[in-house]
């Protein structure tokens, strides 16, 4: 295979990986926010995020035949998913994590696994009662079209540029990246520029001292879970848009990958989560591509790389980071004492 056909191919893979990476990045933020404040890995986050995806599906389904603008439908879906996922996350914290706040570390972790299993079945039953299991997104018209495909459209220079380098991007991919960037900016603003963010950071640093300074740490932890859940809702809708189909159990894989992303970037660090998400998106797409390479090059050995190895890839990345740089790329190390 010559370079002229290979190059656009690689560029496509990387662009696709970055788009995917933005979805992972926002899921990873949900993990990282909670971890930063409570030092708890919220195993249930993958279900919170799938709940967002389900809500998004329902909104798109209900609005399927309405005359609303496609972007308005998306906005409605996002807002509904944010509210439901955010409240769900707050509820989980209140019922399952708060009573265990002073228990040994293993205890809330096991609870989190339990909550995640419960939510999976609840979601399955709720959707199953209406005879559905695999939820296929019905996106507004035009969302799945090629971005700037039409000659002489309003985005002509960009479209021409994309054509020359041979990149295929759908409109929904562009929307996805824009939504992700907007929510990242908003999160960054809230955490770093507002009183709420300041209080959350104070609680994250030292819950007791923050309490002495007049910060209601329970409220702030709830707020963190609300924000984390809302981000989960957004990422759920984006994930549904990107992959087209979700079901009650499909939170596991992206959840693990996003967790890996959070660890890769340094868990507890917001820019780290984004960096890790983008890196893992690209890595995952590259692993998936090896299969195609194998077929193109006619090598029997490369051809055996199956899609399920993508998951192994994420795990191996996780093992390697945790062994060689457990603090992650942008994380701070903390010294542990007896």
């Amino acid at each position, binding site marked *: 295979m010559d370079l002229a056909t290979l190059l656009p191919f690689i560029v496509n893979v990387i662009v696709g990986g970055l788009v995917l990476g933005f979805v992972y990045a926002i899921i990873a933020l949900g993990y990282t926010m909670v971890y930063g404040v409570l030092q*708890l*890995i919220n195993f249930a986050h993958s279900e919170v995020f799938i709940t967002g995806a389900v809500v998004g599906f329902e909104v798109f389904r209900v609005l399927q035949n309405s005359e609303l603008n496609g972007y308005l439908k998306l906005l409605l879906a996002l807002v509904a998913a944010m509210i439901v996922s955010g409240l769900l996350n707050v509820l989980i914290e209140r019922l*399952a994590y708060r*009573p*265990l706040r002073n*228990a*040994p*570390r*293993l*205890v*809330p*972790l*096991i*609870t989190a*696994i*339990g*909550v*995640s*299993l*419960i*939510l*999976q*079945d*609840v979601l*399955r*039953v709720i959707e*199953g*009662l209406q005879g559905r299991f695999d939820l296929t997104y019905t996106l507004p018209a035009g969302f799945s079209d090629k971005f700037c495909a039409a000659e002489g459209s309003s985005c002509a220079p960009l479209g021409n540029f994309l054509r020359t380098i041979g990149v295929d991007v759908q409109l929904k991919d562009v929307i996805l990246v824009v939504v992700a960037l907007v929510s990242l900016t908003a999160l960054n603003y809230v955490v770093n520029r507002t009183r709420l963010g300041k209080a959350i950071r104070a609680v994250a640093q030292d819950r007791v001292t923050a309490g002495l300074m007049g910060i209601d740490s329970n409220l702030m932890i709830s707020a963190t879970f609300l924000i984390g859940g809302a981000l989960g809702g957004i990422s759920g809708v984006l994930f549904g848009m990107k992959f087209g189909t979700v079901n009650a159990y499909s939170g*596991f894989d992206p959840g*693990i990958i996003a*967790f890996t992303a959070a*660890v890769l970037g340094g868990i507890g660090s917001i820019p780290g989560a984004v960096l890790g998400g983008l890196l893992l998106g690209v890595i995952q797409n590259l692993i998936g591509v090896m299969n195609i390479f194998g077929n193109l090059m006619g090598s029997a050995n490369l051809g*055996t790389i*199956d899609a*399920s*190895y993508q*998951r*192994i890839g*994420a*795990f191996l990345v*996780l*093992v390697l980071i*945790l*062994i060689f740089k*457990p603090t992650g790329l942008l994380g701070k190390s903390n010294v*542990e*004492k*007896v």
Partner: protein
Amino acid sequence: MTAVNPAGPAPRRPVVRPDRTVLLLLVFIITSGLLLVSHNRAVLGNMGSLGTLLLNPIVEALVVSLFLANVLFAYMWKAANWAKLIVGVGSLLFVLPLAGRADSSLLDLSIQIMIFAALALGLNIVVGLAGLLDLGYVAFFAVGAYTWSIFASPRFGEILRYYGENAGATGAGTLAIGLVLVAVTAGSMLYIRGLHARLATTRLSTWSFGLAGFGLVAGIVLVGRSLLVLASGSAAAVAGGIDPSFFWLFLALSIMTAALVGVLIGLPVLKLKGDYLAIITLGLGEVIRVLANNLSLYTAGSQGITPIGSASVPWFNSFAAALGFRQDQFYLLFLYALVLIVIAVILLVNVRLDRSRIGRAWIAIRDDEIAAQAMGVPLMQTKLIAFATGASFAGVMGMIFAAKQTFISPESFNLLQSIGVLSMVILGGMGSFSGVILGAAVVTLLNLRILPGLGEASANVPWIPQQANPGQLQRLIFGSILVAMMLLRPEGLLPNKRRTRELHSEHDQEDESGEGNASGLNAGGDVYSAGMATIKENDRPGGSK
């Protein structure tokens, strides 16, 4: 933080419990009778409406649970030792097989319960004693299962045939190269190891040790491959699997393989702890499942391996025949007996380990890794032993599971299974052997009898939709067990005493040692109060289980 309990330790009064020998025997007789009757269709047929009621899956599940509760009562109640012995031995060795003769599914269920009990005991060592949350535990179960199934099924013949057709280099030449490679690399590893013992470790020596390790693996692969090529001539001879009498050899092999895999997985990941360890083990468990799914030549991929043979024990078969068992039940009865012996051995190993140096080191690590290390507990080594011990239990049970099911596929070893075993450990009580066995029995009964029974019963009830059928709510049940136990009773149903104190005291370690010192002035041995707890536990004359 060093707050000695101001009120002083509560005086420990011996709990006086009423003697229940008569009650125990009565319950045993009634429930045994119920079990025997309810699994005998000939008798049920003559009983009219009562017979139909007993055939109801929910009632049947209830009867089985009641019967199994006997063994628990024998363990817990204060009663004469001979009564406990009669109930324990009678239930497990006579009544259960007898009822199983009329209904094979009962034998199957009891084997399943004991397999899970052994798994839970193994995981209990890892999670309950050493405090390492392992979410990929079922991987070792898979290793044991595949170790036997590949050889005891037509798979082995097919692998040999494949190597016969794709020999590559000549078998003998590859064998020679492989053997030389193994000898050289193993020798150099030993040499570097010796150097490390005498001189300081350098970066270079560490790297060369690792390199030699890679060479060793490559050598072993070459040797294995060439052996397969050399043996490919006998592909037709093993078309139906190897000789069943290799079962006993493989019983040992599966233990070793699983323990080896435990060490191999443990070596890189055991530096981590808590949440990270949990997620990494979860990942490695998935990796093993994905490998089983994709290495189609060896594992038949997602189709699974079948039929898997079991040991042939002629004298046992004639013994079973003399007892009136049907031909197709022989292997079940054999596995039932085997699994009883294995679980007895596992229990014995558990109790001995718990009271040994290693057991105390595990508990020290669980309570505070850094403090334990400062006290001279070799962290890595101790954790690896925990991992390998737990894995070996899972390995042997995996093999028995494969022999019982005669079919395995990667789906038998998914994450839900790992979490199921974890929920058994947590339900019963982390660190408590009797509790863990109880947890395994309850969860297995729930999964295999009660939930399907409820599902069957509710299938025709119009207001329960099919999607919410209780038979399919396994995740919900596991999840609820985990959450409810953690919130309401984190020490489990039959708690380990020390663990209870830990979870219910405001200040964890300091408080406890303060208590220990106050209660006995010559409290030299009280630092490891785990030993104390087990002795206490042992004071109760236990039943046969």
